[in-house]
């Protein structure tokens, strides 16, 4: 048995009873489970966002819609650059892959910078902190966890970019790594589509 294991080729394809690559199936299942995670945070926000009777500033009173709209647009366009990186890799265009990967990471970093700016504004200029009231807690918890996901995505993108700079580091043959990071990145984008509408555009000030 040990000999059999020893002689097994390293690139032996894994058994796939579904006909789908196990890593891809795993990623889709993970993303599917993330709906429950973000659903809980969005529900928590909806529950407390306009509940009156607490002291301090409420998030819905100080949203900067033009600023957040630009941030949303930036994140939306990062999905375009991500899919262009994937497309370039399928054509074995390594220069294009590297360029679009870096552009995606840069757009993600711009979005994160915007979030840091927004949080700083709320805390310093409006004295709305994590513990100011339940609405503020729910807001920081939801957008903070989303920002953490974006930050993880940027780290993964920069890692892929670093790997792609090595000779033979990232090729069409190993394209699954880029595809998985791409799926994660697009998911972060669709969650923000929901947050932008539910939290910002449909915000209701406390009664």
């Amino acid at each position, binding site marked *: 048995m040990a000999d059999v294991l020893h002689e097994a080729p390293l690139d032996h394809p894994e058994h796939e009873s579904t006909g789908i690559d196990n890593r891809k199936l795993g990623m889709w299942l993970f993303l599917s489970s993330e709906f*429950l995670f973000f659903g809980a945070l969005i529900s928590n926000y909806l529950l407390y966002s306009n509940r009156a009777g607490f002291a301090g500033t409420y998030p819905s009173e100080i949203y900067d819609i033009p600023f957040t709209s630009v941030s949303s647009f930036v994140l939306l366009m990062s999905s375009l650059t991500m*899919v262009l990186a994937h497309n370039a890799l399928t054509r074995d265009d390594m220069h294009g892959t590297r360029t679009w990967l870096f552009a995606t990471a840069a757009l993600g970093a711009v979005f994160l910078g915007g979030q840091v700016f927004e949080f700083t504004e709320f805390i310093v200029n409006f004295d709305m902190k994590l513990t100011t009231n339940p609405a503020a807690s729910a807001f920081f918890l939801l957008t903070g966890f989303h920002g953490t996901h974006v930050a993880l995505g940027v780290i993964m993108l920069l890692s892929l970019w670093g790997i792609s700079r090595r000779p033979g580091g990232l090729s069409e043959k190993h394209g699954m790594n880029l595809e998985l990071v791409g799926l994660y990145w697009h998911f972060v984008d669709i969650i923000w589509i929901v947050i932008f509408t539910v939290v910002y555009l449909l915000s209701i000030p406390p009664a």
Partner: protein
Amino acid sequence: MTNEHHHPTPAQYWKIAVLLGVLTAIEVALYYVNLSYDLGSFNAILLIVLATLKFVIVVAFYMHLRYEKATLSRFFTGGFVLAASLYTVVLAALGVLVIRGS
């Protein structure tokens, strides 16, 4: 990289991005129109429809779910429907789910 030949071309990806940008612009415009003219629950319904459209476009074309095996669609849709149903019931039970315009 399954079914790669079915995926959109870069030019189509750009067109989809323009569409997503336009939908976002409509959302923001609607927000300001509602501030001036109070569209009531119509505003909320329209914004939810637009967000759903953007959501579906990204999942279908950028995540390529439209071109994947049905198993993946079932898993992903199943997770979404489960979460959406659960939290809709919870929020309705807590009296939060009342659509208001502004």
